[in-house]
């Protein structure tokens, strides 16, 4: 096991990427390390029919055309903006793409209300400026500038969280593909090398916080990532992420398929309820995304590993479902209460199985929280 808490994709899958690169004989655009088809294979996994000698696991679960459109966008001269609800795997896809294309997914700018133009262009090492004056040595390039210089992929997380002046700084980077440094007398322009592009992510729930200007929109291709509602692929994602999680925490614990089914069905019910709700008070604050689902399972696993009998039970799952999803004190609790008594209780009577235990766990937590 690596000594990193969470290794970036290019390290985690380094061996796989090396192998893919060695067998890749398709044309590669710019300085890409892999061809578009291989990138697709890397992200979506390979099958026997692809004729590869080894197995490539699927790493991102979703529609193939989304991945294809994303890769093709990066090969064109526009940036890629992945937009979608929280927890739909935007950042993960961005990381995988950056890792596959340029073996570096860490050139990331995190968009926040405090992000300034310096974060995406460059800043100065003040003490060095005092000692030696302004020069290329005393300049601190931003991750984006690094990406330009090396012709790789730069990432911008949560683009819509940053203010519009910061967003506007991206416009010239994306269209002119250089950053000028007016403070220097010579060597004052940093040009982007071929292969440079930007993958940004934006949260569709944050729309309206800092809307993108149409000039910036024009320089990005938008790829919308939908919430996974297909039960089969959702189960796949949850299993995949949980296994990874268990490995990371070195926990040996079994997630029984019936329990996974309980989790998936309860989320499906809650989503249906949210879709049918009339006002915000009637729906959970949570977006009920797949990531949220994984969060609930993770919580349950950790709890039963450290405090429980080292065995995942429906009771613990019920309790962490309520615990994770109840964010607003009266409203969310009321919805969960309604759900447990209106849906889970009758189902427990009809179907039996793990549902009664799940109900008991949820009920206890509601009693504790309210």
């Amino acid at each position, binding site marked *: 096991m690596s000594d990193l808490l969470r290794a970036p994709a290019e390290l985690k899958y380094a061996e796989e990427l090396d192998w893919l690169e060695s067998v890749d004989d398709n044309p590669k655009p710019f300085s890409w390390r892999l061809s*578009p*088809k291989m990138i*697709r294979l890397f992200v979506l996994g390979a099958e026997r*029919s692809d004729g590869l000698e080894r197995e490539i696991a699927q790493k991102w679960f979703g529609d*193939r*055309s989304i991945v*294809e*459109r994303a*890769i*093709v*966008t990066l*090969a*064109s001269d*526009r940036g890629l903006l992945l*937009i979608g609800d929280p927890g739909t795997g935007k950042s993960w896809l961005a990381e995988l793409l950056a890792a596959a294309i340029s073996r570096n997914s860490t050139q990331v700018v995190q968009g926040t209300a405090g992000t300034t133009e310096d974060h995406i262009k460059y800043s100065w090492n003040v003490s060095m400026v005092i000692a030696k004056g302004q020069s290329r040595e005393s300049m601190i390039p931003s991750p984006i500038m690094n990406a330009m210089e090396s012709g790789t992929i730069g990432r911008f997380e949560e683009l819509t969280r940053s203010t519009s002046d910061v967003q506007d700084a991206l416009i010239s980077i994306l269209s002119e593909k250089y950053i000028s440094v007016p403070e220097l007398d010579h060597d004052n322009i940093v040009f982007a090398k071929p292969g440079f592009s930007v993958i940004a992510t*934006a949260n*569709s729930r944050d*729309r309206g916080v800092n809307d*993108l200007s*149409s000039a910036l*929109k*024009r320089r990005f*291709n*938008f*790829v*919308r990532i939908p919430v996974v509602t297909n039960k089969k692929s959702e189960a796949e994602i949850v299993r995949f992420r949980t296994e990874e999680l268990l490995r990371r925490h070195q926990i040996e614990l079994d997630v029984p398929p019936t329990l996974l089914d309980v989790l998936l069905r309860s989320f499906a019910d809650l989503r249906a309820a949210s879709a049918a709700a009339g006002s915000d008070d009637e729906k959970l604050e949570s977006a009920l995304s797949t990531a949220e689902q994984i969060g609930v399972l993770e919580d349950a696993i950790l709890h039963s590993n450290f405090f429980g009998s080292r065995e995942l039970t429906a009771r613990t799952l019920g309790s962490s479902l309520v615990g994770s999803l109840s964010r607003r004190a009266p409203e969310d609790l009321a919805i969960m209460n309604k759900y447990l008594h209106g849906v889970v209780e009758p189902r427990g009577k009809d179907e039996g199985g793990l549902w009664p235990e799940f109900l008991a766990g949820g009920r206890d937590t509601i009693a504790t929280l309210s």
Partner: protein
Amino acid sequence: MSFESLRTQLNEAATAFSDGPGALEGILLGMVDDVDRAVREPLEIFPVCHHSPASAVAMARRLRDKQPKVIYLELCEDMAPLLTELRNCRLPVAVQAFSSEVDGFPADWAPLSVVAPITEASAEYQAIAYALDTPGVELVLVDRSSDHVFQWQPPETKASAEDALHGDAVGVEIGDLRPRFAELEEHLLHHGKVRHWSEWWHQYVELPLGDSDHDTYRQVMFLIGSLFRRLAPGDPHRVRVDEDRERYMWTRMREHLAASGADPAECLYVCGAFHAASRVAEFGVEGTDGFVISPRSATKWQHGLIPSSHAAIEAQFGLAPGSVSIAATEWAKNLKRTKVKPFQLAGQAGGKKARKQPALPGPVAEPTTADQLSGFLQRPPVLDRLDEAELLGWSVEIVRAARRNGYLASTADAIAVFETSILLAGMRDRARPTPYDFQDAAVTCIEKDVVPGRRDVRRLVEIMMGGDRIGQVGYDALPPLARDVHDRLAPLNLKLQQRGVQRALLDITSQPELEACSNLLWMLRYLLPHASARPIMGERKLGERPIQESWDLALGTHQRSLIELGYEGVSVEQVVEQRLRRSAYDPQATTATVLEAVEDAIRYLHSPRLAGELGTRALEVLSGERTVDGAPEVLKRSRRLLAYYRTNEPVLPQWIESFVRTGYAHYCTLLPTAFTEEEAGVDQVAAMLGFLFSMESLALSLGCDRTQLELAVAQSHPEEPSKVALLWAAQVHLGRLSRAELRARCDELLSNPLSLPSYPRYLSGFVHALDPVPSLVDFVVETMSNAFAHLPDPLLLPWLPSLISTLRSRGAQFVPLLVKEAGRLFPGRLPALDEWVPPWLDEPAPVAVRTRTGQGLALLAAHPETCDAVAALLGCEGSWQAAPGGVALLNRYPDTAVALEALMS
């Protein structure tokens, strides 16, 4: 010809891929057997796939080469007579078999409907056009009849969209070819790197087959049919139906061959590739004759053409949105490229100007068929070359369309779309971007976070690629009823055949001939979905004549409903009459619904005969009714009808007189039970009383007896407060209770703390009593004021909502009455309120105490001059008389007068 080499190769392949020859070998070699068998069949089988331009092109080419004398087509045999009408229609249209009177099927299946949509870019249209326009060629439909469709397969109930062009009909299609189980389809899509079935077909069958010769086309199609059949037979019931259909078709073909003596070599059998790979014993000209075709049920089938559309076809047969449109575009392009001359029915509406079709050159000599499959299967897939000009055209076009729809798209986007399409196609292993690749590229480059207009980029691409085309049934192909409707609406001077809403203005006073149109429109309004004919101004009430009307008409958009109406009768009047009769003679019909039918008969048909007949039916229903649920409705309608007859007819019709007489007796009988029963609400009882009181004079004149009513009221002993109030009101009306007594009873209720809580319910009874006894209105105002004055808030406030809802539901009648009365009783200005005493509290001014007559009289007699002067001034003449002596007596002995007064008052 033999497929030996192919067999050997496949055998080797099977051994290589699986561990030994086994199931796989069975499937692979079985497929070759199927192809072999179909190719050897003396009656030429032409396999097709629906909405496949390649099939259509191959068909057109084959028809020119072979020029068969008989064409057998896989289409319901009962639809044959309609096909020549296709030339009057703009395609796509659907051939429909429709039945509303089912006999032999469960009644709840009705109405039964089967549709077979026909598009221009289809092989079947080529066959039909060739057969119908070439002299000496016979077209024989051989598939099971519409009746058998339901005999073999009960209809699935599925919710259909309101505006779906096909309604909830069962769709039948020629050449249904699609994997029968989901996994296979998923597998094919996944490995074909395509998103849906239509795209797969386009990419892997359509393109490679595009320019292939007849033999290759046929053998490949046989192979695909056989592949799907052997790999995935799917639902056993469906397989049985398919096999029965094949038996049916071959049996019919053999029958026809025997009867007409045609040479099988001169015939062509057009069927889906799936059916060409059939293994039933009846297959082939030499097949066994064991299949017995079951007789049709007694259901009466009507046939017609209804408009269809690409979107409707896609929805009905589960195809991807846009796929039929894309197929149509491909067809047009293929024609241009391959220079194949398509067949078209002479005079086809919406088609190109029909040139005089030159006589076909003679058939081409048959080359011997050879194994084309081995070569085809070994060749790498044909890659379509990049058609740069076409892609550029698309890119520019989509950007323009996007701009028109509110997107901020520019030339830069056109470049990006062009580039992305090529990159995407490259990722998907093709040189030339398919329309679907292009669609993906356009969405990637142009679609941002919000859709500015009504349509998103995906939809815009669909529209650009051909868009939805909606067919239209031409005038000549319409059923008589629909033609009649169009003829009769001709004075409106509107193009009603066209789709879309059109406004019709009818000024009937200046153009009296338009009244007939107005009548027809009202009938259509009654019969058709409401969007097809919607009155904007004007209404039709009993006995009113139209003056000016305006209508929104969309008969072209709702052509299907009009055509289906045509299956029910030959004229609109007839259909209305049938519908009215049906609703009146329905076993569930109530008096109210029958009376409604009577009203409709007068309003729409102006037919006293039908109204009389339905009225008699109403009478029957009324005398059989044991509940009073419909009483309010019956009262409303019978009042309206009475008013109509009184004003429009010299004498009342027999039926309504009987109706009033029977109704009077009927409601009198039911009154005591209705008063006590819990089921009968205060509404119903009030309506009964209303009927009894308001029709009383008519009923009495017709020989009813008032004692019956009095007895009925005397027998009524309600307990529910609101009904008690109603009873009191009835008693007041009948003179058995005076106002003073009624007031005393109400005051008692108010003063008794135990009965106080039920006071509001009494009050609502009084409100309801306004209908039968409108003269009580001042009393109702009084009780209501009392309620507001005396009821404590905890009682008053909860009651207010129910008062408001009562007034609201019955408001139209009562509120104006109550407001008027209240306006009369209450002071109109604020200052007056202080001194205002409610009239009911204002004790009647004590009878004037007779005072001695004033002294003035004596004075007047003593000094008459003043009076004379005034009289002269006013111009009065007269003379003085001595005062009668009686007055003096009266003054002296007032007791007599007082005693007399007491006696008289």
